[in-house]
């Protein structure tokens, strides 16, 4: 299937996993290479956020924390409406290689589409504005 669900990259880094781990999982680390500002509550279910100048914000939910080997989070699919339930899962895997680290990042879920989410998206978007505008008209009529 040509619909891209999974993105994978492997990079070799000349620093030990502990140092890479800190860059991936601390606010200070994330803000120095990924976002421009970051905060993170590093525990499964914890929330994290990165912001960039220009106002773009990425809200993440921490899913896996296995120091210093696996760090996983989910985040919103860029471009979809904020209330869309679909999220992609990003997992960083750190493997020691001599003095360095082999870092693998895998992001999956671009092609996900559970039927209920699809129906919600479909129903929500075809009826949402119509019913909201209808409610507004009713409200104004009653006033």
């Amino acid at each position, binding site marked *: 299937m040509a*619909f*891209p669900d999974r993105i994978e990259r492997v990079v070799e880094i000349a*620093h030990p996993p502990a*140092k890479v781990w800190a*860059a991936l999982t601390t606010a200070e680390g994330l803000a120095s*290479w*990924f976002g421009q500002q970051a905060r993170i509550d590093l525990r499964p279910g914890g929330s994290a956020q990165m912001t960039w100048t220009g106002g773009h914000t990425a809200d993440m939910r921490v899913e896996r924390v296995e120091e210093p080997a696996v760090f996983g989070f989910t985040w919103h699919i*860029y471009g979809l409406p904020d209330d869309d339930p679909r999220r992609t899962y990003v997992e960083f895997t750190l493997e020691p290689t001599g003095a360095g680290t082999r870092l693998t990042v895998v992001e999956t879920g671009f092609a996900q589409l559970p039927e209920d989410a699809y129906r919600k*998206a479909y129903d929500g*978007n075809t009826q949402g504005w119509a019913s909201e505008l209808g409610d507004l008209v009713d409200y104004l009529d009653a006033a």
Partner: protein
Amino acid sequence: MPPDLIAGAPDLEAIAAQVFVALADPTRRAILAALASGGPATATDLAGRLPITRQAIAKHLALLAEAGLVTAEPGERRRVRYRLRSAPMQVAQQFLAALARDWDGPLDALKDHLSR
């Protein structure tokens, strides 16, 4: 509603392909853009706004409805009104999100950061 949207496992690729095919044509692009910016409209409404004949608009709307990208609904004075369906657009957007995701830039920045 097209069959692929009713089935339990919709064919995402087919849905995205229909969106991209529709968007590749300038007339259909103009019609979809007009529906997105101005809301549901009849073929006559659209003919008043776009430099395209009503006949051509009606033909394209029929194609778009068949592809599930717009829905026909009863409008005022028994005219058929067309409404953009956002669900297929969101499927296409997921496809684009995967293409637009840049991991190479951030990973290069990570390496640079750690080398400092």
